Protein backbone atom coordinates (compact mmCIF):
# COMPACT_ATOMS: atom_id res chain seq x y z
CA UNK A 1 0.00 0.00 0.00
CA UNK A 2 1.30 3.36 -0.92
CA UNK A 3 -0.83 6.31 0.11
CA UNK A 4 1.25 8.83 -1.76
CA UNK A 5 1.10 7.59 -5.31
CA UNK A 6 2.83 10.56 -6.90
CA UNK A 7 5.74 10.65 -4.51
CA UNK A 8 8.46 8.27 -3.44
CA UNK A 9 7.74 7.03 0.10
CA UNK A 10 11.14 5.51 -0.04
CA UNK A 11 13.09 6.37 -3.11
CA UNK A 12 15.52 3.55 -2.43
CA UNK A 13 12.65 1.28 -3.43
CA UNK A 14 11.63 3.26 -6.44
CA UNK A 15 14.89 4.49 -7.88
CA UNK A 16 15.87 2.93 -11.12
CA UNK A 17 14.12 -0.38 -10.71
CA UNK A 18 10.50 0.23 -11.32
CA UNK A 19 7.85 -2.41 -11.32
CA UNK A 20 9.74 -5.04 -9.36
CA UNK A 21 8.02 -4.96 -5.99
CA UNK A 22 10.79 -6.44 -3.88
CA UNK A 23 14.23 -5.23 -4.76
CA UNK A 24 17.22 -6.77 -3.06
CA UNK A 25 17.64 -3.55 -1.11
CA UNK A 26 14.04 -3.73 0.13
CA UNK A 27 14.48 -7.35 1.11
CA UNK A 28 17.70 -6.53 2.95
CA UNK A 29 15.86 -3.67 4.65
CA UNK A 30 13.04 -5.93 5.83
CA UNK A 31 15.42 -8.56 7.19
CA UNK A 32 17.61 -6.04 8.98
CA UNK A 33 14.68 -4.07 10.36
CA UNK A 34 13.19 -7.23 11.80
CA UNK A 35 16.55 -8.27 13.28
CA UNK A 36 16.80 -4.89 15.00
CA UNK A 37 13.17 -4.64 16.09
CA UNK A 38 13.21 -8.14 17.58
CA UNK A 39 16.61 -7.37 19.13
CA UNK A 40 18.42 -10.21 17.40
CA UNK A 41 21.01 -7.46 17.01
CA UNK A 42 21.33 -5.98 20.46
CA UNK A 43 20.68 -2.28 21.03
CA UNK A 44 23.96 -0.45 21.48
CA UNK A 45 26.00 -3.05 19.57
CA UNK A 46 28.62 -1.87 17.09
CA UNK A 47 28.57 -3.88 13.89
CA UNK A 48 30.23 -3.77 10.50
CA UNK A 49 28.57 -3.81 7.13
CA UNK A 50 30.19 -7.22 6.52
CA UNK A 51 28.64 -8.63 9.69
CA UNK A 52 25.19 -7.37 8.76
CA UNK A 53 25.60 -8.69 5.27
CA UNK A 54 26.51 -12.15 6.69
CA UNK A 55 23.66 -12.05 9.18
CA UNK A 56 20.99 -11.63 6.53
CA UNK A 57 22.85 -13.65 3.90
CA UNK A 58 22.88 -10.89 1.31
CA UNK A 59 25.60 -9.10 -0.59
CA UNK A 60 27.14 -5.77 0.33
CA UNK A 61 25.36 -3.36 -2.00
CA UNK A 62 21.78 -4.10 -0.91
CA UNK A 63 22.98 -4.25 2.70
CA UNK A 64 24.52 -0.81 2.32
CA UNK A 65 21.28 0.64 0.93
CA UNK A 66 19.30 -0.96 3.74
CA UNK A 67 21.69 0.50 6.30
CA UNK A 68 21.18 3.97 4.86
CA UNK A 69 17.43 3.64 5.09
CA UNK A 70 17.61 2.33 8.66
CA UNK A 71 19.82 5.27 9.50
CA UNK A 72 17.14 7.62 8.22
CA UNK A 73 14.57 5.79 10.30
CA UNK A 74 16.69 6.35 13.38
CA UNK A 75 17.38 2.69 14.02
CA UNK A 76 21.06 2.70 13.04
CA UNK A 77 23.76 5.29 13.38
CA UNK A 78 26.68 5.23 10.97
CA UNK A 79 29.87 6.55 12.52
CA UNK A 80 32.54 7.20 9.91
CA UNK A 81 35.52 4.87 10.37
CA UNK A 82 34.05 3.42 13.54
CA UNK A 83 31.26 1.20 12.35
CA UNK A 84 27.52 1.02 12.56
CA UNK A 85 25.81 1.36 15.92
CA UNK A 86 22.37 -0.01 16.68
CA UNK A 87 20.75 2.92 18.40
CA UNK A 88 19.56 2.24 21.89
CA UNK A 89 16.02 3.21 22.52
CA UNK A 90 16.41 4.42 26.06
CA UNK A 91 13.39 5.89 27.84
CA UNK A 92 14.56 9.46 27.17
CA UNK A 93 14.71 8.79 23.44
CA UNK A 94 11.35 7.09 23.75
CA UNK A 95 9.81 10.20 25.31
CA UNK A 96 11.17 12.38 22.49
CA UNK A 97 9.73 9.92 19.99
CA UNK A 98 6.37 9.97 21.77
CA UNK A 99 6.33 13.77 21.82
CA UNK A 100 6.57 13.64 18.02
CA UNK A 101 4.10 10.80 17.66
CA UNK A 102 1.56 12.70 19.77
CA UNK A 103 1.48 15.63 17.34
CA UNK A 104 1.63 13.70 14.10
CA UNK A 105 -0.65 10.84 15.08
CA UNK A 106 -3.26 13.28 16.39
CA UNK A 107 -3.23 14.96 12.99
CA UNK A 108 -3.40 11.57 11.28
CA UNK A 109 -6.42 10.58 13.42
CA UNK A 110 -8.19 13.86 12.60
CA UNK A 111 -7.55 13.59 8.88
CA UNK A 112 -8.46 9.90 8.73
CA UNK A 113 -11.74 10.59 10.60
CA UNK A 114 -12.66 13.26 8.06
CA UNK A 115 -11.45 11.62 4.90
CA UNK A 116 -12.05 7.89 5.21
CA UNK A 117 -14.47 6.19 2.83
CA UNK A 118 -17.43 4.05 3.89
CA UNK A 119 -15.46 0.93 3.05
CA UNK A 120 -12.61 2.13 5.23
CA UNK A 121 -15.02 2.87 8.07
CA UNK A 122 -16.28 -0.68 7.90
CA UNK A 123 -12.71 -1.99 7.98
CA UNK A 124 -11.93 0.22 10.97
CA UNK A 125 -14.85 -1.27 12.89
CA UNK A 126 -13.66 -4.79 12.05
CA UNK A 127 -10.19 -3.89 13.27
CA UNK A 128 -11.68 -2.50 16.49
CA UNK A 129 -13.20 -5.94 17.10
CA UNK A 130 -9.82 -7.57 16.35
CA UNK A 131 -8.17 -5.26 18.88
CA UNK A 132 -10.82 -6.08 21.47
CA UNK A 133 -10.32 -9.80 20.88
CA UNK A 134 -6.55 -9.36 21.19
CA UNK A 135 -7.10 -7.52 24.47
CA UNK A 136 -9.37 -10.26 25.82
CA UNK A 137 -7.14 -13.15 24.78
CA UNK A 138 -3.83 -11.25 25.17
CA UNK A 139 -2.86 -12.68 21.80
CA UNK A 140 0.30 -10.86 20.75
CA UNK A 141 0.28 -12.00 17.15
CA UNK A 142 -3.35 -10.99 16.69
CA UNK A 143 -2.53 -7.55 18.07
CA UNK A 144 0.58 -7.09 15.92
CA UNK A 145 -1.34 -7.97 12.75
CA UNK A 146 -4.28 -5.72 13.60
CA UNK A 147 -1.86 -2.92 14.46
CA UNK A 148 -0.06 -3.20 11.15
CA UNK A 149 -3.33 -3.23 9.19
CA UNK A 150 -4.70 -0.33 11.23
CA UNK A 151 -1.62 1.85 10.61
CA UNK A 152 -1.70 1.21 6.89
CA UNK A 153 -5.43 1.90 6.72
CA UNK A 154 -5.05 5.25 8.49
CA UNK A 155 -2.19 6.27 6.23
CA UNK A 156 -4.20 5.32 3.16
CA UNK A 157 -7.21 7.28 4.42
CA UNK A 158 -5.48 10.52 5.44
CA UNK A 159 -4.55 11.63 1.89
CA UNK A 160 -1.62 13.72 3.05
CA UNK A 161 1.74 12.48 1.78
CA UNK A 162 3.66 14.55 4.32
CA UNK A 163 1.89 12.92 7.23
CA UNK A 164 2.70 9.57 5.61
CA UNK A 165 6.40 10.48 5.24
CA UNK A 166 6.62 11.62 8.84
CA UNK A 167 4.85 8.59 10.28
CA UNK A 168 7.15 6.31 8.29
CA UNK A 169 10.16 8.01 9.85
CA UNK A 170 8.85 7.11 13.28
CA UNK A 171 7.66 3.61 12.53
CA UNK A 172 10.83 1.60 13.18
CA UNK A 173 11.54 2.93 16.65
CA UNK A 174 7.82 2.79 17.52
CA UNK A 175 7.62 -0.84 16.53
CA UNK A 176 10.65 -1.63 18.60
CA UNK A 177 9.20 0.21 21.59
CA UNK A 178 6.16 -2.00 21.35
CA UNK A 179 8.16 -5.20 20.82
CA UNK A 180 10.20 -4.66 23.95
CA UNK A 181 7.00 -4.80 25.97
CA UNK A 182 4.92 -7.28 24.03
CA UNK A 183 5.50 -9.99 26.63
CA UNK A 184 3.62 -8.09 29.32
CA UNK A 185 -0.02 -9.21 29.15
CA UNK A 186 -1.35 -6.18 30.98
CA UNK A 187 0.45 -3.78 28.67
CA UNK A 188 -0.81 -5.68 25.66
CA UNK A 189 -4.41 -5.61 26.86
CA UNK A 190 -4.37 -1.90 27.72
CA UNK A 191 -2.70 -0.97 24.45
CA UNK A 192 -5.12 -3.09 22.42
CA UNK A 193 -8.12 -1.52 24.21
CA UNK A 194 -6.92 1.98 23.45
CA UNK A 195 -6.27 1.03 19.84
CA UNK A 196 -9.82 -0.32 19.60
CA UNK A 197 -11.18 2.96 20.99
CA UNK A 198 -9.10 4.93 18.47
CA UNK A 199 -10.30 2.79 15.56
CA UNK A 200 -13.94 3.34 16.62
CA UNK A 201 -13.36 7.06 17.09
CA UNK A 202 -11.91 7.43 13.59
CA UNK A 203 -14.75 5.37 12.15
CA UNK A 204 -17.26 7.71 13.84
CA UNK A 205 -15.99 10.50 11.61
CA UNK A 206 -15.70 12.95 14.52
CA UNK A 207 -12.23 14.50 14.24
CA UNK A 208 -12.16 15.82 17.82
CA UNK A 209 -13.09 12.46 19.31
CA UNK A 210 -10.46 10.78 17.13
CA UNK A 211 -7.82 13.30 18.26
CA UNK A 212 -8.68 12.67 21.93
CA UNK A 213 -8.45 8.89 21.43
CA UNK A 214 -5.05 9.30 19.77
CA UNK A 215 -3.82 11.39 22.72
CA UNK A 216 -5.07 8.74 25.14
CA UNK A 217 -3.00 6.08 23.36
CA UNK A 218 0.11 8.26 23.52
CA UNK A 219 -0.60 9.03 27.21
CA UNK A 220 -0.37 5.31 27.84
CA UNK A 221 2.94 5.07 25.94
CA UNK A 222 4.33 7.98 27.94
CA UNK A 223 3.31 6.32 31.17
CA UNK A 224 5.22 3.20 30.14
CA UNK A 225 8.30 5.19 29.17
CA UNK A 226 8.20 7.14 32.43
CA UNK A 227 7.92 4.01 34.53
CA UNK A 228 10.88 2.54 32.60
CA UNK A 229 12.76 5.70 33.48
CA UNK A 230 11.91 5.26 37.15
CA UNK A 231 13.07 1.66 37.21
CA UNK A 232 16.29 2.62 35.40
CA UNK A 233 16.97 5.15 38.10
CA UNK A 234 16.30 2.49 40.72
CA UNK A 235 18.58 -0.06 39.06
CA UNK A 236 21.34 2.38 38.09
CA UNK A 237 22.40 0.52 35.01
CA UNK A 238 22.41 0.82 31.28
CA UNK A 239 19.04 0.22 29.72
Amino acid sequence: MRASSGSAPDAADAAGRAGKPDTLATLAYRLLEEAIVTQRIAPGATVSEAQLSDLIGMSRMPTREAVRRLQRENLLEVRPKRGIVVRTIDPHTQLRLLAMRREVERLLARLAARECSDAQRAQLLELAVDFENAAASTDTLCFVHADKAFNELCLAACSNEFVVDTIRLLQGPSRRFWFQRAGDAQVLAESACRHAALARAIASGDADVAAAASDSLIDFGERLARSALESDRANIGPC
Partner: protein
Amino acid sequence: MPVERTARKSTTATRPSRARASTSARAPRTERFKRPQTESLTEQAYTQIEEAIVTLQIAPGASVSELSLSEMTGIGRTPIREAIQRLAREHLIVILPQRGLLVPEIDVKKQLKLLRTRREVERLVCRSAARSATPEEREVFSQLAAEFAEAAAANDDVSFVRLDREFNELCLIAARNEFAESAMRLMHGLSRRFWYYHYKRAADLPEMARLHGAVARAIADGNAEDAGKALDALLDNIEAFTLATLTEL
Protein backbone atom coordinates in the same frame (compact mmCIF):
# COMPACT_ATOMS: atom_id res chain seq x y z
CA MET B 1 14.04 29.10 37.15
CA PRO B 2 17.68 30.04 36.75
CA VAL B 3 17.72 29.37 33.01
CA GLU B 4 14.92 31.80 32.42
CA ARG B 5 16.60 34.46 34.45
CA THR B 6 19.81 34.12 32.43
CA ALA B 7 17.83 34.39 29.24
CA ARG B 8 15.96 37.49 30.36
CA LYS B 9 19.18 39.17 31.29
CA SER B 10 20.78 38.33 27.97
CA THR B 11 17.93 39.86 26.01
CA THR B 12 18.58 43.23 27.56
CA ALA B 13 22.30 43.11 26.78
CA THR B 14 23.37 45.28 23.87
CA ARG B 15 23.10 43.37 20.67
CA PRO B 16 25.78 43.28 18.01
CA SER B 17 26.02 46.41 15.89
CA ARG B 18 24.25 46.70 12.58
CA ALA B 19 27.63 46.46 10.90
CA ARG B 20 28.19 42.97 12.21
CA ALA B 21 24.70 41.89 11.36
CA SER B 22 25.05 42.95 7.78
CA THR B 23 28.46 41.42 7.13
CA SER B 24 27.56 38.90 4.51
CA ALA B 25 30.89 37.09 4.68
CA ARG B 26 30.50 36.12 8.31
CA ALA B 27 29.65 32.50 9.00
CA PRO B 28 26.21 31.89 10.47
CA ARG B 29 26.29 31.83 14.25
CA THR B 30 24.61 28.46 14.18
CA GLU B 31 27.90 26.98 12.90
CA ARG B 32 29.08 27.14 16.47
CA PHE B 33 26.51 24.63 17.57
CA LYS B 34 27.05 22.11 14.82
CA ARG B 35 28.87 18.87 15.26
CA PRO B 36 32.02 18.88 13.16
CA GLN B 37 31.44 16.88 10.01
CA THR B 38 33.24 16.37 6.76
CA GLU B 39 30.94 16.72 3.82
CA SER B 40 30.81 13.67 1.61
CA LEU B 41 30.49 13.94 -2.16
CA THR B 42 26.89 12.84 -1.82
CA GLU B 43 26.18 15.69 0.59
CA GLN B 44 27.94 18.17 -1.67
CA ALA B 45 25.91 16.97 -4.63
CA TYR B 46 22.74 17.12 -2.57
CA THR B 47 23.44 20.65 -1.32
CA GLN B 48 24.19 21.99 -4.79
CA ILE B 49 21.22 20.40 -6.53
CA GLU B 50 18.83 21.26 -3.70
CA GLU B 51 19.92 24.90 -3.86
CA ALA B 52 19.46 24.94 -7.64
CA ILE B 53 15.94 23.52 -7.39
CA VAL B 54 14.84 25.60 -4.41
CA THR B 55 16.09 28.88 -5.89
CA LEU B 56 14.45 28.00 -9.23
CA GLN B 57 17.71 27.86 -11.22
CA ILE B 58 16.25 24.54 -12.29
CA ALA B 59 12.70 25.48 -13.24
CA PRO B 60 9.63 23.73 -11.85
CA GLY B 61 8.50 21.15 -14.40
CA ALA B 62 11.98 20.74 -15.90
CA SER B 63 13.33 17.34 -16.89
CA VAL B 64 16.77 16.50 -15.55
CA SER B 65 19.01 13.46 -15.76
CA GLU B 66 21.84 11.93 -13.78
CA LEU B 67 24.13 13.10 -16.53
CA SER B 68 22.89 16.69 -16.60
CA LEU B 69 23.10 16.97 -12.81
CA SER B 70 26.55 15.42 -12.86
CA GLU B 71 27.68 18.00 -15.43
CA MET B 72 26.07 20.85 -13.53
CA THR B 73 27.81 19.97 -10.27
CA GLY B 74 31.00 18.40 -11.60
CA ILE B 75 30.38 15.42 -9.30
CA GLY B 76 30.39 11.77 -10.39
CA ARG B 77 27.37 9.61 -11.08
CA THR B 78 27.27 7.50 -7.90
CA PRO B 79 27.04 10.41 -5.43
CA ILE B 80 24.58 12.10 -7.79
CA ARG B 81 22.40 9.01 -7.75
CA GLU B 82 22.34 8.99 -3.96
CA ALA B 83 21.59 12.71 -3.84
CA ILE B 84 18.69 12.17 -6.24
CA GLN B 85 17.19 9.57 -3.94
CA ARG B 86 17.29 11.99 -1.05
CA LEU B 87 15.77 14.77 -3.16
CA ALA B 88 13.02 12.37 -4.20
CA ARG B 89 12.20 11.72 -0.55
CA GLU B 90 11.93 15.48 -0.10
CA HIS B 91 9.55 15.76 -3.09
CA LEU B 92 12.02 17.94 -4.98
CA ILE B 93 12.63 15.38 -7.73
CA VAL B 94 10.15 12.85 -9.06
CA ILE B 95 11.62 9.61 -10.34
CA LEU B 96 9.62 8.44 -13.33
CA PRO B 97 10.36 4.76 -13.81
CA GLN B 98 12.09 4.21 -17.17
CA ARG B 99 11.43 7.81 -18.15
CA GLY B 100 13.92 9.85 -16.20
CA LEU B 101 13.70 12.56 -13.61
CA LEU B 102 11.39 15.51 -13.24
CA VAL B 103 11.48 18.55 -11.02
CA PRO B 104 7.81 18.80 -10.00
CA GLU B 105 5.63 21.78 -10.81
CA ILE B 106 4.61 24.11 -8.01
CA ASP B 107 1.44 22.64 -6.54
CA VAL B 108 -0.57 24.80 -4.13
CA LYS B 109 -2.77 21.96 -2.92
CA LYS B 110 0.26 19.88 -2.06
CA GLN B 111 1.80 22.90 -0.38
CA LEU B 112 -1.25 23.27 1.86
CA LYS B 113 -0.98 19.62 2.86
CA LEU B 114 2.65 20.18 3.68
CA LEU B 115 1.75 23.15 5.87
CA ARG B 116 -0.78 21.12 7.85
CA THR B 117 1.90 18.61 8.74
CA ARG B 118 4.60 21.19 9.19
CA ARG B 119 2.46 23.17 11.62
CA GLU B 120 2.23 20.24 14.04
CA VAL B 121 5.91 19.33 13.85
CA GLU B 122 7.19 22.88 13.92
CA ARG B 123 5.00 23.80 16.88
CA LEU B 124 6.62 20.93 18.77
CA VAL B 125 10.08 22.09 17.62
CA CYS B 126 9.50 25.65 18.84
CA ARG B 127 7.98 24.60 22.15
CA SER B 128 10.83 22.16 22.75
CA ALA B 129 13.41 24.78 21.81
CA ALA B 130 11.84 27.19 24.32
CA ARG B 131 12.23 24.53 27.00
CA SER B 132 15.61 23.05 26.06
CA ALA B 133 17.74 25.84 24.56
CA THR B 134 21.04 26.55 26.30
CA PRO B 135 21.80 30.08 27.56
CA GLU B 136 24.12 30.59 24.54
CA GLU B 137 21.39 29.51 22.15
CA ARG B 138 18.87 31.80 23.86
CA GLU B 139 21.30 34.66 23.37
CA VAL B 140 21.34 33.97 19.63
CA PHE B 141 17.54 33.64 19.51
CA SER B 142 17.35 37.02 21.15
CA GLN B 143 19.69 38.54 18.56
CA LEU B 144 17.67 36.91 15.78
CA ALA B 145 14.47 38.42 17.17
CA ALA B 146 16.02 41.88 16.98
CA GLU B 147 17.36 41.28 13.48
CA PHE B 148 13.99 40.04 12.26
CA ALA B 149 12.55 43.32 13.53
CA GLU B 150 15.19 45.24 11.58
CA ALA B 151 14.49 43.22 8.42
CA ALA B 152 10.78 43.96 8.91
CA ALA B 153 11.42 47.69 9.27
CA ALA B 154 13.75 47.78 6.26
CA ASN B 155 11.64 45.38 4.16
CA ASP B 156 14.95 43.66 3.39
CA ASP B 157 14.36 40.33 1.65
CA VAL B 158 18.01 39.29 1.46
CA SER B 159 18.48 39.59 5.23
CA PHE B 160 15.17 37.91 5.80
CA VAL B 161 16.11 34.82 3.79
CA ARG B 162 19.43 34.56 5.62
CA LEU B 163 17.84 35.07 9.05
CA ASP B 164 15.11 32.58 8.27
CA ARG B 165 17.64 29.92 7.40
CA GLU B 166 19.71 30.56 10.50
CA PHE B 167 16.61 30.59 12.67
CA ASN B 168 15.36 27.27 11.29
CA GLU B 169 18.70 25.58 11.87
CA LEU B 170 18.99 26.90 15.39
CA CYS B 171 15.45 25.78 16.23
CA LEU B 172 16.26 22.23 15.17
CA ILE B 173 19.45 22.21 17.22
CA ALA B 174 17.85 23.76 20.30
CA ALA B 175 14.76 21.52 20.21
CA ARG B 176 16.92 18.43 20.77
CA ASN B 177 14.49 16.02 19.18
CA GLU B 178 16.08 13.99 16.39
CA PHE B 179 12.73 12.70 15.19
CA ALA B 180 11.26 16.17 14.75
CA GLU B 181 14.48 17.27 13.07
CA SER B 182 14.35 14.48 10.46
CA ALA B 183 10.70 15.25 9.75
CA MET B 184 11.32 19.00 9.37
CA ARG B 185 14.25 18.39 7.04
CA LEU B 186 11.97 16.38 4.75
CA MET B 187 9.75 19.45 4.33
CA HIS B 188 12.20 22.37 4.29
CA GLY B 189 13.14 22.24 0.62
CA LEU B 190 9.62 22.28 -0.76
CA SER B 191 8.65 25.09 1.64
CA ARG B 192 11.59 27.22 0.59
CA ARG B 193 11.02 26.66 -3.12
CA PHE B 194 7.41 27.78 -2.83
CA TRP B 195 8.55 30.89 -1.04
CA TYR B 196 11.11 31.74 -3.73
CA TYR B 197 8.54 31.25 -6.42
CA HIS B 198 5.89 33.55 -4.95
CA TYR B 199 7.18 35.89 -2.32
CA LYS B 200 7.88 38.92 -4.49
CA ARG B 201 4.26 39.11 -5.55
CA ALA B 202 2.28 37.56 -2.73
CA ALA B 203 4.10 37.84 0.58
CA ASP B 204 3.85 40.56 3.16
CA LEU B 205 7.52 40.39 4.04
CA PRO B 206 7.58 42.82 6.97
CA GLU B 207 4.67 41.00 8.60
CA MET B 208 6.32 37.63 8.06
CA ALA B 209 9.61 38.88 9.52
CA ARG B 210 7.73 40.28 12.50
CA LEU B 211 6.00 36.93 13.10
CA HIS B 212 9.33 35.09 12.92
CA GLY B 213 10.75 37.56 15.40
CA ALA B 214 7.90 36.82 17.83
CA VAL B 215 8.72 33.09 17.75
CA ALA B 216 12.43 33.78 18.28
CA ARG B 217 11.61 36.10 21.20
CA ALA B 218 9.37 33.53 22.91
CA ILE B 219 12.06 30.85 22.57
CA ALA B 220 14.73 33.24 23.90
CA ASP B 221 12.46 33.90 26.90
CA GLY B 222 11.92 30.21 27.50
CA ASN B 223 8.15 30.56 27.16
CA ALA B 224 6.96 27.35 25.48
CA GLU B 225 3.30 28.32 25.39
CA ASP B 226 3.99 31.66 23.69
CA ALA B 227 6.42 29.98 21.29
CA GLY B 228 3.65 27.57 20.25
CA LYS B 229 1.12 30.38 19.81
CA ALA B 230 3.57 32.56 17.89
CA LEU B 231 4.33 29.63 15.61
CA ASP B 232 0.62 29.08 14.94
CA ALA B 233 0.28 32.77 14.06
CA LEU B 234 3.23 32.44 11.67
CA LEU B 235 1.77 29.35 10.04
CA ASP B 236 -1.62 31.11 9.69
CA ASN B 237 0.19 33.83 7.77
CA ILE B 238 2.06 31.35 5.56
CA GLU B 239 -1.19 29.50 4.87
CA ALA B 240 -2.89 32.75 3.89
CA PHE B 241 0.08 33.60 1.67
CA THR B 242 -0.11 30.16 0.05
CA LEU B 243 -3.86 30.52 -0.60
CA ALA B 244 -3.34 34.03 -1.95
CA THR B 245 -1.11 32.66 -4.71
CA LEU B 246 -4.19 30.90 -6.08
CA THR B 247 -6.06 34.12 -6.76
CA GLU B 248 -2.95 35.57 -8.30
CA LEU B 249 -2.89 32.87 -11.01
